[in-house]
């Protein structure tokens, strides 16, 4: 379990992480979601004791990272896939790290096998593709068979097969009772892999909840309608307190349940052609929530571009 309390990190006058508090439970995959530049990597570095928080604390199973007796056996992390000496072989890279925590040499071969790099173990990591580097980073995280695993953007650079592999790996690690915390700026990845979510924007906590609740409580439930005398129905719905939005795709009604819409249509003698409840995807919810907190928002209208 990871407990972050009031984590704050300033770089000069720029506040990268702002009073961030959240818990990461064991036994489930927790996603760490936020746009690029929202402070995800800084937070992960603070969990690992690499960056010193300006204020606040973060504990791993109740202990400060610096006080862990065998850090790699308790916490495994993929921070940056390419953060390896390019001239060293994958095997020697892992072996050097294994030695720091008295991890036996057999384990190096084992994790190379798990991530599918046994065949290229002797090759210099500078010649690795991004996908292979990601696999090496995951091998590094698994080296100490730790109970807590942190992955920063683990699917970056992976092919579809690799992405599927990572998803299943994260889930199976969580099923073994481990604490899994992985970051991504891809909302779709979260809905596929994570059970719980920590969402941040501009370093601030936006949500700390389950993926299901996150969508349910934040998504605006709308109903797509079409009718014979559509304009007349819209007027009646507005009078009943609904918000009506007309787009190219159709007419969406918010603030009324489908049953109520049906009753209003019946009262007006209007025949409905369509009455479809719409559930926002995680992606839409996320965009909605972070649009105001995104550090780098394009001022150009997205529709005007490609």
């Amino acid at each position, binding site marked *: 379990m990871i407990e972050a309390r009031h984590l704050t990190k300033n770089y000069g006058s720029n506040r990268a992480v702002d009073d961030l508090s959240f818990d990461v439970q064991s036994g489930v995959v927790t996603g760490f979601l936020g746009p690029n530049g929202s402070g995800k990597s800084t937070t992960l570095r603070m969990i690992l004791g690499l*960056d010193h928080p300006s204020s606040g604390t973060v504990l791993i199973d109740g202990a400060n990272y610096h006080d862990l007796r065998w850090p790699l056996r308790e916490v495994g992390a993929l*921070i940056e896939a390419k953060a390896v*000496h390019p001239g060293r072989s994958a095997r020697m890279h892992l072996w050097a*790290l294994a030695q*720091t925590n008295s*991890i036996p040499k057999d384990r190096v071969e084992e994790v190379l096998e798990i991530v599918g790099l046994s065949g290229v173990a002797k090759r210099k990591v500078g010649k690795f593709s991004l996908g292979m580097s990601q696999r090496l980073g995951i091998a590094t995280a698994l080296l100490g068979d730790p109970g807590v695993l942190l992955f920063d953007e683990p699917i970056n650079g992976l092919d579809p097969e690799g992405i599927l592999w990572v998803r299943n790996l994260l889930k199976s690690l969580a099923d073994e009772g481990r604490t899994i915390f992985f970051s991504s700026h891809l909302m779709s990845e979260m809905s596929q892999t994570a059970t719980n979510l920590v969402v941040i924007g501009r370093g601030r906590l936006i949500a700390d909840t389950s993926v299901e609740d996150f969508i349910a409580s934040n998504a605006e439930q709308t109903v797509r309608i079409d009718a014979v005398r559509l304009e007349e129905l819209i007027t009646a719905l507005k009078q009943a307190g609904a918000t009506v939005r007309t787009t190219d795709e159709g007419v969406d009604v918010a603030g009324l349940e489908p049953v109520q819409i049906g009753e209003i249509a019946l009262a007006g003698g209007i025949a409905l052609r369509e009455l479809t409840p719409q559930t926002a995807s995680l992606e839409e919810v996320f965009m909605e929530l972070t649009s105001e907190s995104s550090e780098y928002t394009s001022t150009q209208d997205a529709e005007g571009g490609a």
Partner: protein
Amino acid sequence: MSPLTAPKGRRAGLRQQIASEFTKMRSVRSTWVVLGTMIVISLGFAVLFPAIIANGWHDRSAAERVNFDPVSVTQFGIIFGQLVIAVFAVLFITPEFSSGSIRGTLAALPRRRNVLAAKAIVLGGATLVVTEILSFASFFLGRAILLAFGGQAVTGQLTLAEQIKATHAPVYAITTSGVAQAIFGGGLYLTLIALFALGMGFILRSTPGSIALFVALLLIIPGVLQALPRSISNAIQPKMPSNLGAAMTSVHQRTTDFGGQLLAPWPAAALMAAYCVVLLGLGLWLFSRRDA
């Protein structure tokens, strides 16, 4: 996955990190390139300089003869090799900063003091073993070349007056007082240079930056200092690292190439060690405070 066996020992610390750093050192090609280069430079100059000096002894002026040192003459390659050793030392740390792999290192051992200490111990230990072997090999090879090119074996130390009057380049035995110590000084100097450069690497965190500063400090500043009034220059020159190296490998206390009298060997070694303590201390202070 099969569960890991419990580790031996109380917690991850210096001993584990030393093993790791040694693995890192031997698993990159630059280490072996440096070793090969050091062998070629040290032994090459141990042939070249003694040959030239012994051969041309008759034509040497009194001033040049005063500047002749029977051990130092075999250790030119060792002193020239300081740049190679400095690059080696810098490359032992700065790529971890530039690649970001220092984060992996520190995630595995968060106690930064132990990381720096392990690097210093592994670098210092490996450099000492290799450079001492090369220092002594250079002496014996250089001595054989001196004799082959007209040098004359002498027993005991000659005074500088005797050295000026000598008809042949004097060749010392290793048993002569001060000789073994001066040869040992060659390897010791390079070891301290390695720690000096390691400290600069921890401070600057950049490969080109650290190497540029090292070159400036050892090769450029001594020349620039000559522009200062002679009294000031002569006071500073002997305390520059390269002149400390000359002092540590000399039997005689000679003048330096840029003026000023060389220090005695042990005070020179002590001052060089003090530089290393200051640089590594500052490096540790910054390393502990900075974000990785």
